[in-house]
């Protein structure tokens, strides 16, 4: 749907790498161009008209994100450079000062590097323990299985909403309820879900949530950290500098601004935030119910079709989100990706930044198709046709 909004689709390409980044609709691109051609100025600075306009758009996006997540207050929305930055803020700005040696953090082996490495670093630094919740035979996390690893020492559970590999959708509402009853902080990596399905941080009892604009039709280099107000009050900035202080003196006395500005030192990615606002408007105009329905339909269609090809292994048939992992039997996934690229079909080959998954899946690398609102059944038909004809793969890739 809405293919006409995407300039990139006017080229002869089939774009199936939406978990990596999505294409951008014209309205998002225009919003950024307008900032650079009609009202360039810094935010939080000027007494002149264009600066005021920038302020209004920048803070207006904060309000939009608040509504988008159903947060209680706009003070709970911090702009960051992306999910990675947001999660690092939670780990090194919050967990570092609110956890003590022996405390436990629970993650899973299907998490993205950004939700693993910061925790491993903090474990070395602080002496906390990182534990992995068990996954079922389809590599999905069952809510009740979390109880198998939760102990009185568990302080944080940090999970992807939708995993970027297997594509399982975690039951955030059920998990949030369970954690709230046990006074455990709930951190959510929503990089793969924010542009695909509705999130309600209050209903889901989420304490911190991170996402990136570029995986939901927005620009790269911009993201969000949501944190409950009382928790952001306990978080310390990672960056110090302009824009986040009230005053400072040579004797060392200083006072910082209140949340969320406290966490936004230096000139922010203004074009990015404006673009994010436009992306939210764009997605909400289509409606998340529609997007979800479309992806589900495409996914089922893709799995059906792939299953008819004899030499294809599909590795996550039983997942729900629009990610499909597959391999051509006996062919290294990178060769498959290069082969498909020859026919202008963009897929990703690799471990998809989830390097712990190999311990569970037994294979290190796969090809990944990740679908989005503008993909079509016709595109899937072309992919299937190309895969069916892959006997000549080495004539193409060598």
């Amino acid at each position: 749907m809405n293919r006409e909004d995407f300039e990139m689709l006017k080229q002869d390409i089939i774009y199936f790498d939406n978990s990596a980044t999505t294409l951008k609709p014209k309205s998002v691109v225009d919003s950024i161009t307008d900032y650079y051609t009609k009202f360039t100025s810094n935010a939080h600075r000027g007494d002149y008209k264009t600066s005021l306009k920038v302020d209004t758009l920048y803070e207006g996006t904060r309000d939009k994100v608040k509504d988008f997540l159903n947060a209680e207050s706009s003070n709970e929305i911090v702009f960051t450079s992306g999910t990675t930055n947001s999660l690092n803020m939670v780990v090194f700005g919050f967990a570092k000062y609110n956890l003590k040696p022996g405390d436990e953090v629970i993650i899973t082996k299907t998490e993205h590097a950004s939700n693993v490495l910061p925790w491993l670093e903090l474990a070395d630094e602080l002496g906390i323990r990182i534990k992995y919740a068990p996954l079922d035979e389809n590599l999905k996390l069952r809510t009740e299985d979390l109880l198998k690893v939760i102990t009185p020492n568990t302080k944080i559970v940090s999970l992807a909403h939708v995993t970027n590999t297997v594509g399982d959708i975690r039951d955030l509402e059920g998990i949030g309820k369970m954690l709230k009853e046990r006074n455990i902080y709930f951190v959510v990596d929503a990089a793969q879900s924010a542009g695909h399905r509705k999130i309600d941080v209050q209903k889901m009892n989420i304490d911190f949530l991170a996402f990136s604009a570029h995986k939901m039709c927005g620009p790269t280099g911009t993201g969000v950290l949501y944190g409950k107000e009382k928790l952001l009050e306990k978080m310390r900035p990672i960056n110090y500098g302009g824009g986040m202080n009230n005053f400072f003196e040579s004797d060392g006395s200083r006072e910082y601004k209140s949340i969320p500005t406290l966490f936004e030192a230096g000139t922010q990615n203004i074009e990015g935030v404006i673009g994010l606002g436009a992306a939210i408007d764009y997605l909400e105009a289509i409606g998340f119910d529609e997007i979800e329905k479309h992806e589900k339909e495409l996914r089922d269609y893709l799995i059906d079709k792939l299953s008819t090809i004899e030499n294809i292994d599909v590795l996550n048939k039983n997942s729900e989100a629009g990610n499909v992992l597959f391999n051509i039997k006996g062919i290294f996934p990178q060769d498959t990706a290069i082969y498909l690229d020859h026919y202008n079909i963009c897929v990703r080959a690799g471990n998809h930044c989830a390097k712990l998954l190999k311990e569970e899946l037994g294979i290190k690398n796969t090809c990944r198709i990740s679908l989005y609102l503008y993909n079509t059944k016709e595109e899937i038909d072309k992919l299937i046709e190309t895969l069916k004809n892959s006997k000549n793969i080495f004539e193409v890739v060598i």
Partner: protein
Amino acid sequence: MEKELRREIILDNYQNPYNKKTIEDSSYIKINTNNESCIDNLDIYFKVEGGFIKDAGFNGEACAISTSATSIMLRGLIGKSISEVKELLKNYINMINEKEYDQDLLKELNVYDEIYLQPNRKNCALLPARAVEKMLKEIENAG
């Protein structure tokens, strides 16, 4: 080189790579090549004695170009002196990067003389070269 012959040599080295096995002998230098931009991950083993490459092998997962290039290069390195290895390496890297090189010196490695036409595959062809570079550095540091 003729396209068919080129493909045949590459494919043969991919499907029947030279000395592809794990070598657990401490007299070998082990080099891991793990490239983030592509997903190839190979361990390469070199036995160096008296300034000569006595033996080499490799194991791991990699694409057709990386695997075949490693196979061809390792076979070509066995029996060569360190200075000959350096000369071969320089010429190989030059070829991949479209610079001047000595065609006679590279022998079978000439099958990659047109890899620059697929820029996203240059790193694949360079994978064994990076490993040899690391190996040379280790020898230098040790010596």
